[in-house]
């Protein structure tokens, strides 16, 4: 499975060298040139069902690897299940390895391996085939993605068309709005028309009244004309009577003329008879003739008068005729005016109908108007309410926040009003919980704030100071360490020397218990007196301990000699020999301008002193001093 295929054995060798050199572990190699595989030639099937094939036949691979495959799988047969595998193995006397499809194996040795297979982690072989399948899937998915992108583009195009349609629809909406406005105007114009019609109706009513008045007048006229006609008839009758009278008169005149003519004849007879009296008669005659002329002229005038009268008569007749005609015409007119009246009546009816219709319309319009008025009143009530609310809110705003509606625009409008109101409520509750207002709080706050600031400043100062002090301490400890180490070394050295001098041999050393924490570490003294092993000071005898301590004391004194030194019974624990050693050393030391005041009761020490002061207490509480100068 994990075998590595190489060209030649040389290659395999190289790779194994590499593995060994780099300590990478082991691997097995299959050189193409060296491996020769063998295949099973014959399988004793003997009617056993479920045999699939020799394993090498099932593997597809390049021709150059065939030998390797034969080598590995040529002697392996694959069966459907365990039963057929066992049968096959028995039949062929375990001549080859048999593997079932579930991965159970019957080896040629007869051993059987099997169980569950960890498919996920171990299946390397499946991985390559899976890779191929997955690559195919990837290309299929890529194709799908391409298709989806295409459809996406199509959808985008369709979205654009829909947007265009929406634009059209909006335009249509605008047009409809325009139409709506024009229709509204039309309604208004119709209302105006109604008003005009009402005016017209009123005019017509007035006309009707006038016509009725005209009619009455006409009727009056007719009556007057009839009266006139009657008068004219009376006049004509009178004129006729007058004419008759004239005719009678005329007859009288002719009779008169006849009479006159008779007279003339009589006179002519008288003339003849009265020739004598002719002159006179002639005179008379002339007179008569004159009279005759006068009469004739008067006749003529009368005739003329008659003619005139006749003419007058004629003209009057004509007048009568014309008047008659006029009467007829007036009658006709009266008839016509009756028709007209009827027509007007009809018209009036129509107009009345129209009027009723218009009234109805007006009523409807009134109802509409009333409805609108109701709505308006409702709206007014609403408006008033809203106004009151607005006023209340503005008042509230001014009282609570000292903000006018104009200023509000400066503030940010809350996104969620419910949340904000809840917040406001919470804040109110918090304010309530804060308790009653303390007026002195502001002053107190100022004082406290001042104090707080002052304290803060001081704190800062202190902090700075601590930092500085810490730094100083650090520096100091550093210096102390250095100095300590330096001095320690010197003291150690001096201690060793002094020890050797005092003990006349041996070895002594000072040691720090904790090298890392020098300043706080304890100091241990390791000494090796002459003839003894190296040991801790605690293991020494009391005298040795004291003597070692003295050695250390002298070592310190040697390095840093002080002018005056008090030693209080430091050699009390020493034995006689060591006391003398100490005394000698002390004497030797005193030469270095150090004055020693030694309190002691050891004689050896007393011997080397320059001056001795003895202190005794004879009586309780009273000391007595006794001084003695030696040398």
């Amino acid at each position: 499975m994990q075998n590595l295929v190489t060209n030649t054995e040389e290659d395999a060798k190289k790779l194994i060298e590499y593995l060994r050199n780099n300590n990478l572990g082991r691997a097995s190699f299959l050189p193409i040139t060296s491996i020769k595989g063998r295949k099973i030639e014959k399988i004793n099937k003997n009617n056993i069902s479920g045999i699939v094939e020799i394993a090498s036949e099932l593997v597809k691979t390049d021709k150059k690897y065939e030998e390797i495959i034969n080598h590995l799988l040529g002697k392996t047969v694959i069966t459907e299940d365990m039963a057929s595998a066992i049968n096959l193995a028995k039949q062929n006397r375990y001549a080859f390895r048999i593997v079932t499809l579930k991965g159970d194996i019957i080896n040629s040795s007869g051993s059987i391996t099997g169980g569950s297979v960890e498919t996920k982690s171990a299946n390397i072989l499946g991985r390559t085939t899976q890779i191929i399948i997955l690559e195919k899937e990837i290309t299929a998915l890529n194709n799908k993605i391409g298709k989806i992108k295409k459809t996406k583009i199509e959808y985008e195009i369709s979205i654009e068309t829909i947007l265009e349609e929406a634009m059209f629809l909006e335009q249509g909406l605008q047009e409809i709005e325009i139409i709506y406005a024009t229709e509204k105007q039309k309604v208004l114009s119709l209302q105006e028309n109604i008003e005009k019609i009402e005016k017209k109706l009123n005019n017509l009513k007035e006309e009707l009244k006038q016509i009725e008045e005209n009619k009455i007048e006409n009727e009056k006229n007719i009556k007057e004309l009839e009266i006139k006609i009657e008068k004219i008839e009376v006049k004509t009758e009178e004129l006729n009577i007058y004419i008759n009278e004239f005719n009678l008169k005329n007859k009288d005149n002719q009779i008169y003329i006849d009479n006159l003519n008779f007279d003339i004849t009589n006179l002519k007879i008288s003339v003849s008879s009265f020739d004598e009296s002719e002159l006179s008669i002639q005179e008379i005659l002339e007179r008569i003739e004159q009279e005759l002329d006068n009469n004739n002229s008067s006749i003529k005038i009368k005739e003329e008068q008659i003619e005139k009268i006749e003419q007058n008569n004629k003209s009057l007749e004509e007048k009568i005729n014309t008047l008659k005609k006029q009467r007829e015409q007036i009658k006709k007119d009266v008839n016509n005016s009756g028709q007209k009246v009827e027509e007007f009546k009809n018209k009036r009816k129509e107009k009345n109908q129209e009027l009723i219709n218009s009234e109805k319309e007006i009523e409807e319009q009134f109802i509409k108007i009333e409805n609108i008025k109701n709505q308006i009143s409702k709206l007014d009530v609403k408006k008033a309410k809203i106004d009151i609310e607005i006023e209340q809110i503005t008042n509230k705003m001014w009282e609570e926040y000292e903000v006018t509606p104009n200023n509000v625009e400066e503030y940010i409008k809350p996104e969620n009003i419910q949340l904000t109101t809840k917040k406001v409520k919470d804040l109110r509750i918090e304010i309530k919980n804060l308790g009653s207002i303390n007026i002195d709080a502001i002053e107190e706050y100022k004082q406290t704030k001042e104090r707080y600031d002052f304290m803060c400043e001081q704190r800062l100062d202190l902090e700075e100071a601590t930092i500085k002090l810490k730094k100083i301490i650090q520096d100091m400890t550093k210096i102390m360490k250095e100095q300590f180490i330096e001095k320690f070394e010197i003291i150690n050295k001096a201690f060793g020397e002094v020890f050797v001098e005092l003990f006349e041999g041996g070895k002594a050393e000072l040691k720090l218990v904790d090298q890392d924490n020098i300043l706080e570490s304890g100091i241990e003294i390791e000494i090796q007196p002459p003839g003894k092993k190296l040991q801790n000071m605690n293991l020494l005898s009391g005298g040795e301990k004291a003597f070692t301590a003295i050695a250390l004391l002298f070592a310190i004194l040697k390095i840093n000699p002080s002018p005056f030194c008090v030693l209080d019974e430091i050699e009390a624990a020493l034995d006689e020999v060591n006391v003398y050693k100490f005394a000698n050393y002390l004497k030797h030391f005193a030469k270095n301008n150090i004055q020693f005041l030694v309190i002691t009761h050891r004689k050896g020490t007393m011997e080397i002193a320059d001056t001795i002061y003895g202190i005794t207490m004879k009586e309780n509480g009273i000391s007595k001093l006794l001084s003695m100068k030696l040398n």
Partner: protein
Amino acid sequence: MEAEKEGYAKSVKSLLIECDKKVELKKCIHGVLANLISVDKKYEIAVEMALRICYAKSCYKY
């Protein structure tokens, strides 16, 4: 998984990773046997098991 050389023995894995870096080593190796062959899905488990046994044996041999 394949690129990380997961599932191979430590030695094979490191060798393959090294081969990806060095050309002269890559020349020597054709590849892991599993990558050079393909089997029907049906026979995958059987063939893999058969090859595993061979591998164990060959390891023992060398």
